[in-house]
């Protein structure tokens, strides 16, 4: 990934309108071979529409879809080398597991013995050996999902499309299945596009994430890019909890990349050598993730980036304690992990807390 080869899939300025409603407003992205890219975004943002456009089930209003060098935008789905796993799995109820998986191969007029071998291979790949003769209504949700996956992989497509494949499963099964999907995908090395509204799912298995909202790409990057350096407030809030602290850049040192930011609670010094787009006098929002804040008792020694507050509320969750701190007239969420080995604060306690110097800053107008 990230080499100079032709990308497996390229979206070039894709637009889609349904009547007067513009759903996709110029989507461009380049997906290298073997990558697992996840489309993520709130309901109605167009991620499923985009997936369906790649698959050929929804027509494109304008733009190009280039699969392995060929523009496929005008091709119907049965002539594209993409395969989709539908959210409802869309398994054929009148065929058993084997026949479902082998359906595409049968259409290719492959000889039956070869179909049988390939189906056996796939059953083994998705850990469904021995269940080939079951009818669809007699297998569980997780098993149906695996059959749908096997069926799509049977024809060895260039791109695999997964439309919220885990949303019909219960929470535990979801975690198990997403690991399985990821491991199969990595083993075969197939370029995959995954659609989900669950950001944790997206972050845990993706090579890169594409965040969609209002019909445009908000940001495309690795999970850590998205989480640690979101490009705007929507993205910052969409993925995980976040606290925003307003401030103004008072000074910056070009060499060391250290900015001094004044906030209503005090001065904060941040070290963002990579943020070339910020300058003196800019108004910013500091993006503070709850788990990056450290709590101290009120009599602790002063440290850089230390602010004062009062515990408003605490919630013990086993592996962490979630504190709500009142700081001025604002509330800040703080997650403190490993509570066993830390000081436990209670409601009403005055405390001090530090913000890390590597905190991300967003220009105010984003």
């Amino acid at each position: 990934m990230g080499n100079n080869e032709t990308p497996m899939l390229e979206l070039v300025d894709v637009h889609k309108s349904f009547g007067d409603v513009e759903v996709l407003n110029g989507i461009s992205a380049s997906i290298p071979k073997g990558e697992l890219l996840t489309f993520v975004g709130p309901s109605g943002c167009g991620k499923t529409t985009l997936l369906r456009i790649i698959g050929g089930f929804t027509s494109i209003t304008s733009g190009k879809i280039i699969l392995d060098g060929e523009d496929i935008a005008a091709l119907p789905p049965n002539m594209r080398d993409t395969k989709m796993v539908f959210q409802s799995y869309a398994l054929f109820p009148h065929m058993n597991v084997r026949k479902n998986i082998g359906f595409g191969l049968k259409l290719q007029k492959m000889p039956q013995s070869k179909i049988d071998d390939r189906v056996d291979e796939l059953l083994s790949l998705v850990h469904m050996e021995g269940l080939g003769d079951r009818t669809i209504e007699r297998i569980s949700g997780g098993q149906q999902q695996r059959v749908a996956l096997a069926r799509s992989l049977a024809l060895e497509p260039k791109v695999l499309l997964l439309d919220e494949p885990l949303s019909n499963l219960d929470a535990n099964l979801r975690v198990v299945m997403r690991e399985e999907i990821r491991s199969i995908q990595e083993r075969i090395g197939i370029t995959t596009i995954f659609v989900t509204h669950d950001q944790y799912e997206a972050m845990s298995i993706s090579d890169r994430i594409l965040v969609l909202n209002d019909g445009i790409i908000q940001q495309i990057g690795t999970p850590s890019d998205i989480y640690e350096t979101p490009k705007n407030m929507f993205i910052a809030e969409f993925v995980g909890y976040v606290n925003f602290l307003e401030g103004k850049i008072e000074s910056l040192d070009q060499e060391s990349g250290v900015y001094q930011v004044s906030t209503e609670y005090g001065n904060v010094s941040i070290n963002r050598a990579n943020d070339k787009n910020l300058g003196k006098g800019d108004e910013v929002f500091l993006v503070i993730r709850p788990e990056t804040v450290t709590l101290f008792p009120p009599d602790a020694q002063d440290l850089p980036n230390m602010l004062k507050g009062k515990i408003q509320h605490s919630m013990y969750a086993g592996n962490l304690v979630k504190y709500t701190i009142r700081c001025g007239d604002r509330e800040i969420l703080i997650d403190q992990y490993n509570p066993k080995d830390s000081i436990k604060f209670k409601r009403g306690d005055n405390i001090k807390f530090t913000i890390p110097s590597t905190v991300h800053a967003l220009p105010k107008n984003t």
Partner: protein
Amino acid sequence: MAEAIIGNQYSIWYKIRIFVNSHLINIFAGGLFALLAIFLAFPLVMVFIKSLWGDDGFTLTFYQEFFTYNYYYWSFLNTMILGLSTMFILVVVGFCFAYMTTRGPNWLRTPLKICALMPLCAPPYIFSISLITLFGRNGMINNFFNLDFNIYSWTGVIVAQCLAFLPLSFMMIENVLNSQNPSLEESAADMGASESMIIRFITIPLAAPGVLKAALLVFVMAIAEFGNPAILGGRLPFLAPDTYLMITGEGDFNMASVLSVVLMLPCLIIFVLHNYILKGKGYTTIVGKPTAVDPKEITPLIKYFLLAIVTPVAIMVLLCFGVIVVGAFVKIVGVDNTFVWDHMFNMQSNAAIFNSVKLSLMAGLFGAIVGTLLAYVIMRGKFRGRNVMEMMALSGFALPGTVIGVGYIMAFNKPPFLLAGTIWILILNCAFRFLAVGVEAGISKLHQISIEIEEASADLGADFITIFFKVILPIMFSAFIAGFIYTFMTTMMSLSSVIFLVTPGFDLAAVYIYLTAQLGELGLASAATVKMILIVMVCLASLKLLAKKTGLKSN
């Protein structure tokens, strides 16, 4: 409650009221069972008995006669052939229509649907009249193209039956196609299937159980219907008209009963298959994830193939209706085309229509009341035999009208049930034959009402009678109305049963149309039909309005 010993301080009336309250359902159930037994089971039993009971007691000679004489053998065979050919043709045609209205170009869907459903607002035998007008000896098309086509033949009967029952096939198959999850077709396309492969491997196999049910129903309707085979059959014998001829021509009730039993058997078998074995079989695969979708285009080749089948049929339907309307207002259609009002204002015709309306209102009312009560008793009663009751209530629908008609003559022509010659025999016949819709509507409505509503009312102090009249009936009112309108509508149009039961002096529209058509008075037949259609259309419109306003599921 009633099990507790009621102390002597309560008056006898109070005790009776408590008793009635707690057993009201069972009392009603008993009464309804009696009604069903007398007015559905008894006539049928009479038919069976008469087929086996001659002047000298139990005998099989009548059946022997049936199986020996060629004429009867052919009558039976012809009926089966009629049923099968109508069935096969309508499965194909119905599928083509349904595919076009569910997946075809948008601008075509509504017009095609209208054409496919038009025959619903007319009695099935109007197509005989239209076809005679077009292809009869002086038929418009025969004259225009100088053809010598004989409509009184297999072609005539089959075409008429196909046109008459097209809506039935279409509606059922359309329902099946609409309940298929579109992702299945998309998934198949994703696997590389072209549209024809999708139809072959996915659409048709998934639709098969539903299509089978439609086919069986069409078969039953085609063999049971009296009008078209009677009018267009020519010298071809069919069981339903032959039953009528047995009675009116030869007064032979025994043979008429044998013919009825033979006609009844396939219908009963299919009824059982339909409601008990095939019920619930089928693939409904709709799951909800609302995604905006583009309407998909049918491949041109498939589209033209479907159009080739669907267009001539649609044109035929329109032509038939058009010709009836024209024939109602024209002196002798095709021959003397001067505009006249005579046919429309004919006194006898209007008297017949008036009588039909009167009969239909009374049958509708009676049927709706019995139907609603039956629905309640079946759903809420706790006695054994509820399923039998439901089956009896629905069976009227499955049995050929001629069979019930014959049964009614034999059952009610002497005391204690001397009803022959009165309007009551007609009312009861129609009410009980068409109970099914009212009962099913009632049952479906009651499914939607939790029994807790009734329990809450009791908790608040209402006794059963109060609950029934103030809570249950108002809620079931829409089902009541649906049953009423449907019974009214079918009573207006039905011919097969009433033709046995009418008396001179009391003309019914359906019989009037049949007789005038037989006599070649096409103008009068057409006019009466137009009036009947108008009345029926009003009924259908109000049914639709009712369904919309009260959320009643359409059957």
